[in-house]
């Protein structure tokens, strides 16, 4: 169909793979998100902590540099589980801010403008649509969490040698697993709230609210009932228990058992998926 002809012709060209077509959604989401300079600046800021960590690792293995900078080697932070756990905390906290900015704008505009029938009348199922929207956050958060931290891990392995790598391979597993659990929790929460709350600032505030109110309510239950099970509504506490176990292989004293923290996080993700599936429909059916 050439422009000058102005006549209709069917398309007979090649088609893309159906299994990866959902990735069109994050691509278009990024074009919108990165159009904002503030967001771009914030996104770049997220790479500063890994850069600082890389400098730490470099200095740890470069006696000449330490000599020039006049830093005693025993004053440097050791590169161990705590080091990577702290940087995972920092990166996940920055990611949380990004998620509160990006998440609310992912689904709500489609619902506000009644655009779901347009998506779902194409070879795109509700699952593909949800996957596309969630992957917009997953990809973004991966770029600032487990990917830079894994690079740091392998940088340290390169500097310290293969022996260190095999001795600490558990750390890499902890980085990837810990980051993915957190990313799934935060992405599902953000997308589910975006589907239910059309006004973006409110949806963003609610993401904070779930953490703060959940934490407060959990602490209240724990205090009043002299129990630890109130932490099951505290996502941050459950993440903390999961990370501690992943990085150090131990539970958190005076808190939930590790299995219950994992079960709580899985349950939370399940609730978010349920909320999402209730809302992601081409048309609402009014039942009589």
């Amino acid at each position, binding site marked *: *169909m*050439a*422009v000058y002809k*102005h*006549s*209709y*012709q*069917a*398309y*007979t*060209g*090649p*088609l*893309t793979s*159906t299994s990866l*077509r959902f990735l*069109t*959604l994050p691509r*278009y989401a990024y*074009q*919108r998100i990165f159009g904002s300079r503030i967001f771009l600046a914030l996104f770049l800021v997220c790479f500063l902590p890994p850069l600082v960590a890389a400098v730490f690792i470099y200095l740890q293995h470069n006696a000449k540099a330490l000599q020039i900078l006049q830093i005693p080697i025993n004053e440097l932070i050791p590169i161990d589980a705590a080091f990577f756990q702290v940087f995972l905390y920092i990166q996940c906290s920055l990611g949380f801010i990004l998620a509160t900015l990006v998440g609310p704008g992912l689904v709500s*505009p*489609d619902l*506000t*403008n*009644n*655009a779901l*029938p*347009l*998506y*779902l*009348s*194409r*070879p*795109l*199922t509700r699952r593909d649509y949800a996957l596309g929207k969630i992957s917009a956050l997953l990809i973004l958060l991966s770029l600032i969490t487990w990917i830079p931290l894994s690079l740091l891990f392998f940088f340290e392995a390169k500097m310290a040698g293969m022996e260190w790598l095999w001795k600490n391979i558990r750390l890499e597993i902890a980085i990837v697993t810990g980051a993915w659990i957190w990313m799934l929790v935060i992405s599902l929460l953000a997308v589910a709230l975006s589907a239910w709350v059309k006004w973006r600032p409110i949806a963003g505030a609610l993401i904070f609210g779930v953490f703060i109110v959940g934490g407060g309510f959990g602490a209240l239950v724990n205090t009043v009932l002299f129990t630890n099970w109130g932490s099951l509504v505290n996502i941050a506490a459950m993440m903390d228990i999961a990370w501690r176990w992943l990085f150090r292989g131990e539970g958190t004293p005076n808190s939930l058992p590790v299995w219950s923290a994992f079960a709580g996080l899985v349950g939370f993700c399940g609730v978010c998926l349920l909320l999402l599936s209730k809302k992601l*429909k*081409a*048309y609402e*059916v*009014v*039942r*009589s």
Partner: protein
Amino acid sequence: MQSVIELDNLTIRFGRQTVLKGLKGAFSGRAIGLLGPNGAGKTTLLHTLLGFYPPAAGTGRVFGYDIQREIKKIRHLIGYMPENDSFIADMTGIRFVRMMAELSGLPPSLALERAHETLFYVGLGEARYRKLGTYSLGMKQMAKLAQAIVHGPKLLILDEPTNGLDPPARQRMISLIRDIRATGETALILSSHLLRDVEECCEEVMILKEGEIVVYCNLEEERKANRKFLELEIIGDTQPFVEMAERLGCECAVQGGYRIKMVLPEQVHIRDLYSLAANKQIQIRKLNYKRDSLQDIFLKAMEGNRGSLQA
């Protein structure tokens, strides 16, 4: 000829309400008009064909693919223009149509090319870099049509395409739909309240009433079926002419003394009427076939069920 849609006892229920009641039939028309009063189930039928609602009983097929098991394959072949406002306000026309093309499987570069071409085709070439939120109602309708045809579907489903359009915009929409139909590459299902839209764009019509198909007919054939129904204007003595005609087996009704409505039996032809008139020295000044308009067909269907599906 392969059926465009096949319905096999298709039943849709919303809660306790049965919206589509065991629809049956194979429909192979290139341009099917879907008519019916509000709440007849037109939009529900379209949404079911798109896989939005699961059938409570029975099933349906589009180009032979089952709407429950092979919906992705069906959606590859369909372009859908919804009735209500459906767009993304903060997107430009070109980005919106390109994204929809990519979601239908076009590679990004080809999707961009097709999006430009399609927007020019529907008359939004100059406005393609404007945000959809700034479009007028008519432009939004055209943008909806553009996203429905950008991937060159085999079946185009149009739900009230002329809703809210002024006469020139309506005419433009109708001529685009007719142009798409004329290519022969895309089958159409057009749902509309406006009989004129269906009459101008469709070859076949399906009329729904209270969740049932009460009429499915080919408009041209329906008109041809009434070839023996004539309207005549004569000059001369009407009475003997009518009597002679009735002796031949015609049913006659005289209006105003010179106008006669007549139903001819199979064996009587027009030339017999002319010889009769010549014998009686009567002039036939006007002779028309009375053609059933879509309005007649629709009204008949609404008066009472015609009993069976006439596919």
